[in-house]
Every structure is written in structure tokens, then in C-alpha cells.
């Protein structure tokens, strides 16, 4: 019979060795799979590495993807730290992108690019925050379940953008195609070192989130509320205020991500701007155990994996194979966290088989025959 048993946590260097080992094992399994399917593993994995890091195009795409994932994962990590299950980052990204587009459309032509960019980013912050505030208020005043609520808000956001694209903001110059006009070029995020400036924001956001949760009063309150609302009240915290502020911060960060994706990559608002990052970010946040530096690392690796498997498909391996490899690696990473805390105990049906008789030899010396040890009271000292 096989059972799961709690063990002492593995920590420190050993834990990292286990993690690295798991990824290597997943890669080894992938190599076997590639061989079985009749492809050349060196060519396939070479293409994967080459695709993710080897070419300038690959590197840029990896980083662009990582920026969006990291910013979103940081956003949800703030909400998750207070056990507010914000599954609505997807919608908050879209509403941030919507608000940024609105700002770009409203501001008069000839606004200096610096002002335009700043205005769009701020609008993004506000858009995401407002979208997250709705489920936040419902939760604290009516006790609704935020998981379902934030999830539903995603679909509302998507349909809202479709509505804009097909009706209100439909570009008259697009020959009848239901698309929204590009935002003015002045609102584009300028490239820095080859990639749009959003990466600088992502790095700043990671540092800020780290210090926010660790060293500010609000961050501390968020962590206490996440642990126990009763303790928070006992310590004199206004739990409602903390939840609302935390939700606003989380939503605003997701909204900022939306603005960055719009201004750096898409340049035109559509319902595909978020592209599932709001959901992938949840996996990343947990993979990194909600730690900001961990999120940055996990995002880059995840983006590289995605970009690399894309390149594999270009050299001829089927998309299903790259999906399987992605899955293997992700599963290895996630299950490692499990095995650092639990172990699998295999036991025989007959429990008495576990009672082993002592081996003959020096081990016996300290014990002595049991009859003696059972003799009348040992005197204590």
C-alpha cells in the first residue's frame, strides 16, 4: 500500500539541489520521448535553447513574454498574500489596456510623448484598480466569494472590449473590419536595449513588491490579514480597509501590466491583449511561493520554455510534443514543492513485517537483553 506522509521540510541548499534535479529528470524524460518518436534530440533541444536564448529575436521575445508574466504574477501575489484569491488578473489587464487606450484617445494631438506615456500608464493603473475594486467591495460588505466573482469579471471585461471593437471604437479607416485604431505613436513605450521599456517597469515593480510586502505597514497588515482575520482585529487592524487597499494595489498592478502590453506590444486594443497571462501568472506566483525574486526567475524560465518550444516546432517536431515537454517540466517543478514537504511511504499489507529483529553484532551492545532492562525500577539521578 502506498500512502503520503508528512515529513520535515527540506530547506536551503538541499532543497535547491532537489529542484534542479527534478528539472533535469524531466528533461531526461523528454529526451527519451523525443527519441521514441524518432526525432533527433540534439537537434530538437538545440532548437529549443537556440529559440529561447540563441537569437536576438528569441531573446527579445522571451523577455517581452517574461515582462508581462512577471508583472501579472507580482500583482496576484499581493492579493494572494492576504488570501484574497484574485483570479481576475486577466480582466484587470484588459481594463488597464482599455483605460490606457481611452487616455490616448482623449488627450489632444500634439501632447508631448512623455506626458502621453505617463498619462496612459496612470490610466492603466486606475483601470485595473477599479475593476478589482468591485469584487473587493462585494467581498467585504456582502461576503461574496471573490474567486468566482473575479473570474466572472474576466468575461465581462472581454465582452466589453469586443463591444468597443465592433461598435463604439470601431476604426472607420479599417475598411469595415471591426478593429480599434492604433494608439498614437507618441504613446508607444520606447525600446531600451532592444526591448520596450516595460522591462524596466517590471524590474522596479519586483523590487517595489518585495519591499512593499516586507517592510511597509500596509504590506505587514496584508500578511497578517492573510494569516488570520481574528489576529488582525485583535492587533487593532481595520480589516476592511486592509482588504480594499490590498485589492486596489493588486488590481492596479495588473492594470499597469495591461497598459504596458498595449503600449509596448499590441498598440491596438483587442480582447486578445491579455492572452491568458492572467491565468499563467497564477501558476507562476505559486511556483515562486509568492516571493517577488522567485516570480522574476520563474517568469523568465517559463517564457523561455514557451519561446523555446515554439522554435522546436519550426524545426519540425509536432506542437503536441512541445506541449508534452512543457507539461513534463512544469509538473516536475510543481511536484518538487510537494516532495519537499511530503514523502511517499510504501508499506506491505502485513504491518508486522515492518517489525524487524535486531541484527546481530555491535548494534546490540548498547541495548542488552530486554529482560534486564525490564527489571525493577532504575534509580534516577
Amino acid at each position, binding site marked *: 500500500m502506498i500512502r503520503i506522509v508528512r515529513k*520535515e521540510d527540506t530547506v536551503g541548499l538541499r532543497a535547491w539541489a532537489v529542484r534542479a534535479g527534478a528539472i533535469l529528470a524531466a528533461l531526461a524524460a523528454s529526451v527519451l520521448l523525443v527519441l521514441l518518436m524518432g526525432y533527433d534530440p540534439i537537434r530538437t533541444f538545440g532548437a529549443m535553447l537556440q529559440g529561447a536564448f540563441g537569437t536576438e529575436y528569441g531573446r527579445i521575445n522571451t523577455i517581452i513574454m517574461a515582462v508581462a508574466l512577471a508583472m501579472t504574477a507580482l500583482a496576484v501575489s499581493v492579493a494572494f498574500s492576504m488570501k484574497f484569491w484574485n483570479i481576475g488578473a486577466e480582466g484587470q489587464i484588459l481594463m488597464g489596456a482599455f483605460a490606457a487606450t481611452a487616455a490616448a484617445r482623449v488627450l489632444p494631438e500634439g501632447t508631448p510623448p512623455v506626458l502621453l506615456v505617463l498619462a496612459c500608464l496612470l490610466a492603466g493603473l486606475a483601470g485595473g484598480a477599479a475593476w478589482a475594486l468591485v469584487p473587493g467591495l462585494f467581498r467585504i460588505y456582502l461576503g461574496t466569494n471573490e474567486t468566482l466573482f473575479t473570474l466572472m469579471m474576466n468575461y465581462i471585461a472581454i465582452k466589453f472590449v469586443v463591444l468597443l471593437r465592433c461598435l463604439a471604437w470601431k476604426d472607420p479607416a479599417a475598411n469595415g473590419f471591426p478593429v480599434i485604431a492604433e494608439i498614437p505613436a507618441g504613446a508607444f513605450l520606447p525600446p531600451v536595449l532592444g526591448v520596450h521599456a516595460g522591462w524596466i517597469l517590471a524590474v522596479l515593480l519586483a523590487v517595489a513588491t518585495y519591499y512593499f510586502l516586507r517592510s*511597509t*505597514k500596509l504590506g505587514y497588515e496584508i500578511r497578517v490579514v492573510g494569516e488570520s482575520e481574528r489576529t488582525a482585529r*485583535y492587533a487593532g487592524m481595520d480589516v476592511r480597509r486592509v482588504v480594499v487597499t490590498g485589492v486596489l494595489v493588486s488590481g492596479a498592478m495588473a492594470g499597469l501590466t495591461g497598459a504596458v502590453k498595449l503600449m509596448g506590444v499590441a498598440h491596438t486594443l483587442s480582447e486578445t491583449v491579455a492572452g491568458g497571462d492572467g491565468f499563467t501568472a497564477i501558476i507562476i506566483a505559486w511556483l515562486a511561493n509568492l516571493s517577488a525574486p522567485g516570480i522574476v526567475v520563474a517568469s523568465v524560465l517559463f517564457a523561455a520554455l514557451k519561446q523555446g518550444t515554439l522554435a522546436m516546432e519550426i524545426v519540425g517536431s509536432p506542437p503536441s510534443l512541445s506541449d508534452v515537454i512543457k507539461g513534463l517540466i512544469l509538473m516536475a517543478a510543481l511536484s518538487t514543492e510537494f516532495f519537499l514537504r511530503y514523502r511517499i511511504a510504501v508499506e506491505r499489507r502485513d504491518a508486522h513485517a*515492518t517489525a524487524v529483529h535486531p541484527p546481530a553484532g555491535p548494534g546490540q551492545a548498547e541495548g542488552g537483553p530486554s529482560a534486564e532492562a*525490564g527489571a525493577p525500577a532504575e534509580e534516577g539521578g
Partner: protein
Amino acid sequence: MPYVHPEQDPAERRRIDPAIEMEGISKAFGSVQANRDVRFTVRHGEIHALLGENGSGKSTLMNILSGIYQPDAGTIRLRGREVVFRSPRDSIELGIGMVHQHFKLVEPMTASENVAMGTGDGLSRSRAKAAERIRDYAARFGMPVDPDKKVADMSVGEKQSVEILKVLYRGADILVLDEPTAVLTPQEIEHLFAILRRMREEGASIVFISHKLHEVLDLCDRVTVLRKGETVGTVDVAGTTALRLIEMMVGRAVDLSIERPPVGADGPCLSVRGLTVRDALGVAKLDGVSFDLAHGEILGVAGLAGSGQKELCESIAGLVHPQSGAILFHERDIVGRSPREIIRMGISMSFIPEDRLGMGLVASMDIADNIMLKDYALYGGFLLDRGSARRKAQSIVDRLAISTPSIFHPVRKLSGGNIQKVILGREIDLSPKLLVTAYAVRGLDIHSSYTIYHLLNEQKRKGVAILYVGEDLDVLLELCDRVMVLCGGRVTGIVDARTSRKEEIGLLMTGVTGDAPVPAGAGEGKA
């Protein structure tokens, strides 16, 4: 010398071989050596006490015996056979039953469902048989358990009987009880002892963990004392005294008297008038409670569990809003003020609920982060003052001798006594004018308890008014100046602790007042 067991008939072997023999057990957690070469032997048919201060390695040893931890070194023999536990199930199947301090029962289910759960007998046909067996055990050992009663409707004593039935049902003849009396009333404790004695007569071996020496002396046959992870020795109860046991535990002679400094002269601090608190269903949890508390005075609060102590503490801390009445602190009514305003006024509550980590502390955070829980907001700016929190944490750890690898250790990994020291240390550090403390020494060993009494007296001398909600009547009478007795949410008496006797308070606790008839409903179903 190879070990060959002599061929003997089973009865003879049972007589000679001890039930449990743990030899040379060592276990380290990181740099902390929790057990070092521990030797622990329990005979068949005896009640054996395991004594030791908090952090002396008792829990580790018992976790090894129940298969939760694997020892780094040493051997375990059960009934003469060497065994190796790979998991708790191995230990259960070899007849060891752990009864934990915190009940692990499913409240909406009945006693027999709880007992049979996980054995495969909870389903269909065997269900009636399971109930029958439970009835048998209950009758045999005199346990007041109805197999069809839901756990949620049971008293604490009944719940504990269900826990014991659970391990008996799984065939345990070696029982380990971890502080079983901590949550029981005096009557329930007597009943438990009767059950345990009957089990001993039937040949069961019982390991009894408790900090209350008079219980150990009353119930047990032999005692093994641990100190700092090592065995100090095993003695017969018949030939020892409480003082001698304490000496073995602490390593030196200890003065067991609690001092009582005179009441300070700084005048009144707190006046409670007609305080009434109702729960969501409109049932009065506190009913017209009135009392006064002066600076430099310790007012004890006695009562059976659930008599309104929690509501009284939480009302003063601003966590519960009373329906009527006034709480005057320095003649200002604090009813309706927020917990933070009350903290700022200098009212401090170190409430230690049954679940120690439930409210006073943030379990996953380290000591330093927990130390700033109450005062982080009292300084300006939006950043935390981590530096001063660290210094404070270090000084509290040093002053109260909290045993921990560092102030960055998560509190959930500390032992119960150390957890309570962290809470009390933090509250005292706020230099309160009024200190409300509930069950401050619950689960603490003697040494730690006395440290806490001294700390409270130190505060008293500084003129702090102290409301001390306690359980141990002897301590209440020795430590406090006056004792207020609650029963069913009402004050049944406030007595002078210098002149009152335990029996007097015991009667008041059950609602028998000198001049009035028993209030309707008071104390009902609680004893």
C-alpha cells in the same frame, strides 16, 4: 552478542518484557538536539508519567514512539520485539494509541462514526457492530459515551472519552495521553482518572504527560523525567515528592511559593458596570457584570470553561460590542471604541485562547514580526520599524529565556510555553496600564509558570492593573488579591483571596451563592 529470544510461554514473556523499551534514542532538528541518548521503559499494566519542562524533548520522544519522526539513533522494543516505525500507521498497528491534547474529531458526526472512521467499519453492515463494540468498551471502563450522540453536542469530557475509544477500537493496549487534563473541570479529571485506573487493571500500559505534579503523584506508578533532551531518571512515585520531581526537572531546588505584593495606592483603574453581551442568537454570554479594578491590583477571574471569560476579555479589548453596560477606564467609557484606540489608551490584552496560535500571534511569521504586531502602527510613516522590533524581540527572548534558534524562527515551530512567553513578553513590553491576561500558564511547565507569575507581580508593583483569568484555583488564591467568580455569564461572587478557601470558590463556580438561589440556567450542562 546476538540476541536470541528465549522460548517462553506468552504470559511469562508479558510479565518479564516491558511494554515499551526505548534505548539510546537521539534526534536532532538542525542544530537543536531534541533527544540525546534517551532511555524510556514502560511496564505492562502501569501508568507511567513523562515529566519535563517545555522543550525538554517529551513531544519529540512521543512523536518517535508514534511513528511521526524517525530517530537518528537508538532502538525501540515493544513487548520484547525490536520494531522500526516507518509511519504512524505502523505504530498504530502495533497497538500504540496517541490521545492528543487537541481533539481531532469530526463535530457533525456521531461518536461511533468518529471511532470507526478510517477502519473500514464505518460503512453499512459493520456499523451496528462498531456501535456495539463501542458500547462494550464504554461500559467496561465506565465512560459516559452514547455512540449515537453527535460530537458537536458533547461536553469536553465526553469528547475526550471518544478520543480514547478511538485508540482502543484500533486495538491499542499502550496509550499515550498528552496533557489530557488541561481542558477538563475537576470533576471530569476525577472521572478520567477512574477510567485510566480501570484500564491499568486490565493490563494496559499508559504514558501520562502532565505538568500538574499532584496529578502525577495521585495517578501514576512511576515517573521518567527528561531535561534538555536527556533522561534524568526514572523513579517510583511511592518514594518521591513533588519537590524532588521539580528538582529533577529543573536541575535545582525551586521555591514553590508565589509572592503577593500589597495592592498599590494609585486608585481605581477600571470600573465595569452592568456589562451585558449577547451572542447572535440572543443568548446572554455576560449578564449584568459589574466590578472594579485598582492600579497595582490583580483581580482573578474564576469559572468553568465558557462562563463568559472570553466575552469579558474581548469586550474590554474592543473586539466584542456589548449590548448594554459601561466599561470605564480612568472614568472614560471605552465601549464602542475600536481595538486600536483601546490599545493606544494603554489597555493590553494577552488573550491565550485554547488554540494558542489562533489569535494572539501570526503563526507563520517569525518572533520579530510577531513582536511588532501590537505597536507597529503607533509610530509615524508608512514603513515598519524593523530595527527596533528586532532589538525588542532579542531583549524579550533574553529576558524571558525563550528557547529558540533565533528571533527569525517562525513562532509556529516554538513549543507551547515559548509561544506564551512571546505573547506575554510583547504585551508587557507595551507598558500597559491595564493588562488583561487569559489562561496565561495553560500548558506551561512549573518553571515557566513561575516565570509568568513573577512577571505579573513585577507589573503589579509598577502599578499596572491586572485582570487574571485563570483555571488553577490554588494559583488564583495565591497570586490574586481578589477573585471574581463567573457562572453562566453572571458574577456569583467576588471574594478576598487572602481569606477564602478553594471549596468556597468551587461552589460559586457552579452557581451556588451564599444568599441567593441558583440562577436559572446558570452553569447548566457545563459541569
